[in-house]
C-alpha cells in the first residue's frame, strides 16, 4: 500500500517588522497586545502597507527552491470569522501566488529524491487565542494580537513524499535551507506549522492540520498511515476529511465537518497593488545552500559524506565548524566529535546548539586536539557543561571544568619527582604479580590488563600511549 504525502508548510519570516505595518516582530516575553497599532489590530480605516523586506525574504526562498516568479502576483482576502482574525479576513495570496513550480532535492527513502514545489505565497499570521481555565473547557478566552501581521510564507509541495520519515527528512532539509537563507528562526515558538495531506494510494486523502513541530510531523503521519491502513484492511472506506493532530496524545482526531465546508470567498485585496517583482527576483543573490556546503566540506575538509551531511544539515553547526582552526577542520577526530558526540549529547538533553556558548566547545576541541584532555575526559567536560547550561542557563569555562574534575592529562616528565603515571604503573605492577608473570611469558592481554589498572588509578587522565610506554619501560627495566 503506497503512502502518498504532500505538505503545506507555514513558516514565519524573520523580519524586524510585521508584514503590513511597522510594529516590531520581537514580542517574546512582552505583554499581550503591546506590539500592535491600528493596522495590525485591524482598526476601522487602517490600511496595509507591504513590507519590502518580507517580499525580499520570500523571493529568496522562491529562488532557493528553483521556483518561477510570475510577472505579476496579487494579494487576496480570505474571508472567515474567528476572534483571532483582526479584520474578519486574512490577507493572503490565492490564484496568483508569488512563485510557482519549484523543487527541493532531499536524501529520500530510496536515495536522492526531487520533491516538487507547487507554489510559494505570502500571507499574514492571525492573532493568538489564550484560553483561560483549561484548554478543554475554558471559562473565557483572551486574544493577543502581538502575532497578528507577522509575515508568513506558505510552501506547498506536490504529493511526492512516500513515508512519514521522508516527510520529516524533507522538513529538515527545508528548515536548513530557510536558515541558510537567513529568513527564518526555527527557535521561535510556532515559527513553523505544517498541514499534511496523506492518503493510501487508491483511497481518499485526509488533511491533517495543526502540526507545530518537526517531530510532530513524523508522529502525526505515522499515526495516520497506521489508522488508514487498518481501516482499509478492515474493509472500511477512508472518508475525505480534515483531522487535527493532538500533539500531547500523538493522535489525529476528526474535526467537525462544518469547518470543512467553509467558503472563504476569496477576492483580490483592493487596498494593495499587485506585486511586480519578477525582475527584482532576478537580481537577488542567495547564499551558499546546504548541498553546496556539503560538497565543499567533503572537498575542502576531506570529510566523509555522512559527516559532511550532518555538519551542514544545520546552519549553526556548519557555521560553528567553520570557526574552528583550519587544521582542526580537516581532522576526522574533530568531525566525529562534533557530528556524533556533540550532537548526540545535545539530542540526549533535547537541547539546541543555540543554547550553548560555542566558544566553549571550540576550546574543548582545541584542548582535546592538543592532548590537554583525553577523549573520554573531553566528553565528561562536555556533559558537565551541558548539564550546567540546562540547569542554570550558563556554565563554567572548559579549563575550569577540567581543573575542577581533575581531568587534566597527566604528563610523564620526571621533573620534580616521579610523575603520577609512573607511580601508578609501579603500583599496578606491585599489586598484580600474576599479570606481570603472564606478560613475561609473552601474553599480550596481560599488558592490556595492566594498562586498564593504570587508567583506573589515574582516573582516565593519562594518555593510553603514555601508559603503555611507561609500563613496558618499567617491566623491561625489571628484567
Amino acid at each position: 500500500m503506497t503512502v502518498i504525502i504532500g505538505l503545506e508548510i507555514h513558516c514565519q519570516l524573520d523580519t524586524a517588522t510585521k508584514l503590513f505595518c511597522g510594529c516590531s516582530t520581537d514580542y517574546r516575553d512582552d505583554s499581550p497586545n503591546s506590539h500592535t497599532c491600528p493596522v495590525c489590530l485591524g482598526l476601522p480605516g487602517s490600511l496595509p502597507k507591504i513590507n519590502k523586506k518580507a517580499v525580499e525574504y520570500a523571493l529568496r526562498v522562491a529562488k532557493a527552491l528553483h521556483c518561477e516568479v510570475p510577472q505579476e502576483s496579487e494579494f487576496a482576502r480570505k474571508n472567515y470569522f474567528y476572534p483571532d482574525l483582526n479584520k474578519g479576513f486574512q490577507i493572503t495570496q490565492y490564484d496568483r501566488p508569488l512563485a510557482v513550480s519549484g523543487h527541493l532535492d532531499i536524501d529520500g527513502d530510496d536515495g536522492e529524491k526531487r520533491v516538487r514545489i507547487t507554489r510559494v505565497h505570502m500571507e499574514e499570521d492571525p492573532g493568538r487565542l489564550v484560553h483561560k481555565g483549561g484548554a478543554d473547557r475554558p471559562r473565557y478566552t483572551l486574544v493577543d494580537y502581538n502575532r497578528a501581521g507577522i509575515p508568513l510564507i506558505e510552501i506547498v509541495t506536490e504529493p511526492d513524499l512516500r513515508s512519514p520519515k521522508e516527510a520529516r527528512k524533507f522538513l529538515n532539509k527545508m528548515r536548513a535551507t530557510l536558515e541558510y537563507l537567513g529568513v527564518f528562526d526555527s527557535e521561535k515558538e510556532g515559527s513553523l506549522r505544517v498541514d499534511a495531506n496523506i492518503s493510501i494510494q487508491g483511497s481518499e486523502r485526509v488533511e491533517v492540520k495543526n502540526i507545530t513541530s518537526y517531530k510532530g510531523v513524523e508522529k502525526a503521519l505515522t499515526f495516520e498511515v497506521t489508522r488508514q491502513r487498518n481501516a482499509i484492511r478492515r474493509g472500511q472506506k477512508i472518508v475525505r476529511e480534515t483531522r487535527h493532530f493532538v500533539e500531547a496524545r500523538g493522535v489525529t482526531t476528526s474535526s467537525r465537518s462544518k469547518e470543512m465546508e467553509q467558503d472563504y470567498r476569496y477576492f483580490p485585496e483592493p487596498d494593495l497593488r499587485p506585486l511586480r517583482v519578477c525582475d527584482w527576483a532576478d537580481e537577488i543573490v542567495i547564499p551558499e545552500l546546504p548541498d553546496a556546503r556539503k560538497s565543499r566540506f567533503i572537498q575542502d575538509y576531506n570529510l566523509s559524506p555522512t559527516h559532511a551531511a550532518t555538519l551542514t544539515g544545520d546552519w549553526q553547526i556548519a557555521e560553528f565548524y567553520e570557526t574552528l582552526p583550519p587544521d582542526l577542520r580537516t581532522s576526522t577526530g574533530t568531525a566525529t566529535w562534533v557530528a556524533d558526540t556533540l550532537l548526540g549529547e545535545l539530542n540526549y538533553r533535547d537541547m539546541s546548539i543555540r543554547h550553548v556558548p560555542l566558544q566553549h566547545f571550540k576550546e574543548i576541541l582545541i584542548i582535546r586536539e592538543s592532548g590537554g584532555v583525553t577523549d573520554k575526559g573531553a566528553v565528561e567536560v562536555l556533559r558537565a557543561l551541558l548539564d550546567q547550561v540546562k540547569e542554570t542557563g550558563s556554565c563554567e569555562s572548559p579549563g575550569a571544568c577540567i581543573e575542577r574534575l581533575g581531568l587534566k592529562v597527566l604528563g610523564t616528565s620526571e621533573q620534580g619527582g616521579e610523575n603520577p603515571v609512573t607511580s601508578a604503573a609501579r603500583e599496578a605492577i606491585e599489586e598484580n604479580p600474576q599479570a606481570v608473570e603472564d606478560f613475561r611469558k609473552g601474553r599480550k592481554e596481560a599488558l592490556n590488563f595492566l594498562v586498564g589498572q593504570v587508567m583506573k588509578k589515574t582516573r582516565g587522565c593519562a594518555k593510553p600511549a603514555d601508559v603503555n610506554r611507561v609500563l613496558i619501560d618499567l617491566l623491561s627495566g625489571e628484567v
Partner: protein
Amino acid sequence: MPGRSIEFHPDDRFFAFLRIIHNPQCGEGKLAGIPVAIKDNISTEGIETTCASRILAGYVPPYDATVVERIRREGAAIVGKTNMDEFGMGTTTENSAFGPTRNPADPSRVPGGSSGGSAAAIAGGLVPMALGTDTGGSIRCPAAFCGIVGLKPTYGRVSRYGLIAYANSLEQIGPMAGTVTDVNRLMGVIAGYDPRDSTSLDMPFRHEPDPDIRGVKIGVPEEFFGEGVDPRVASVVWDGISVLEKKGAEIITCRMPSMACALAAYYVTCTSEASSNLARFDGVRYGPAADSKKTWHESFQERRREGFGEEVRRRIMLGTFALSSGYYGKYYAKAQAARNNVRADFARLFREVDALAGPTMPTVAFRFGEKSDPLSMYLSDILTVPANLAGVPAISVPCGKVENLPVGLQITGCWMEDERVIDIAYAFEQGRSP
C-alpha cells in the same frame, strides 16, 4: 500656536451633525480658524466615529485619518462629525441609525446621501466647508440635492488612510463647499501622496481655479439624459451646458454604451467589498461588546444582527452571495469585466473630448420615504457611479432649480485632471453669477 480655539454653537435644525465640538482647537495655516465638518466615517483621534451605525457606538479612534491630520495642520477647526447613511450605504441619509438629516432647501425632503450631513451643514450655513466621501455618488448626490459644490477626486489622489472602508476600490474622500473656490482650497490641503495608502498617487495638487475654458471640448453622452431623467432636470442642465458654450467651450454630443451595465457592475463590486470590509465588526475589539456568556458563533452573529441596519445587512448578504464559490464567476468576475468596459469607454471618449457634462442626479431631492423600494433607490445612482468605476474625477456644481429645489451639473474629467473639472465648474459658477 497651541491653545487657540473658536466658539461653535450652531442651530443644527436639520440634524446635520452627529457630534458637535463647541470649542474646537485651531491654528495657523491655509485654513486658519475655518470651521470644517467631517463625515462620520473618517477617523478622528479622540472624537467618536460611528459611520452612523449602532455597531460602532462608542468607538473613539486612537488616530487621525491622513486628511484630518492635514486639515488640522493647516489650522482648521474640526467642529464636528456629520450624519450619513450607515457606512455610506444609501442615497438619502435616511439610513442613519441615529435619524435622518433634513434638506435645508426643503426640510420635507432628503438632503441626498450618503454625505447628507456634510452637504446640509454647508447648505444650512453652519460651516463653509466639509469633508465627504464618495463611493458611487455620495458627495455629488447630496451636493446636487442641497445646492452646493462637491468633488469626487481621481482615485488615489486623496489618501484613504483612516476612512472606514465601505468599498475600497471605488471610494474617495473629497471636498464639499458652497463655492468652487472653497472646494479647490480644501482639495489643496487634503490631496497628495500618503505612504500609508498603497493606492495613493504621487501627484501634488497645487491649483488656482481658472475660468478661461475657451476651446475646451465638452462631451455630452446621450445616455446621461436617458430614461429616468426628469425632463425638468434635463432642461435645467441643458441650460447649464449652454452657459459653458457661451464661455467658449465646444459642446459635442456622444455615446457611452457601457452605461447599460455600470449600475450592475457597481452594486456587485461595492457589496462584495463591503461584505468583507464589514466582517471586522464582530464585537471583539470595539463597539458595544457582545454577550460573553454565549459561544463565539452565537455572540458575533447576535452582535451583527443587532448592530447593523437593514440596508447594511442587505448589502452584506448581496456581497457575500456574489463572492460565494460557484457564483464568483457569474457576478464578481463579470462585474470587473463590465467595469473595464466603463474604463475603456471613458478612455475612448477622452481621446475626443476634455470633459463630459450632464446631470448629477436624474431627479431633484426626494421626499422622506419616497423611495421605499431599494431597487428604485439604486437606480438613482446611475449617473454618478461610472466615475467611481473608472476612478476618474467628477464634480457637481449647482446649476439651477426645479420648483425651488436645487439641480446639480456634473462635470466628469479625464483621470488625474481634477484641476480641469474644477476649472470648468468655476467657469460655470462665474458664468451664472451676474
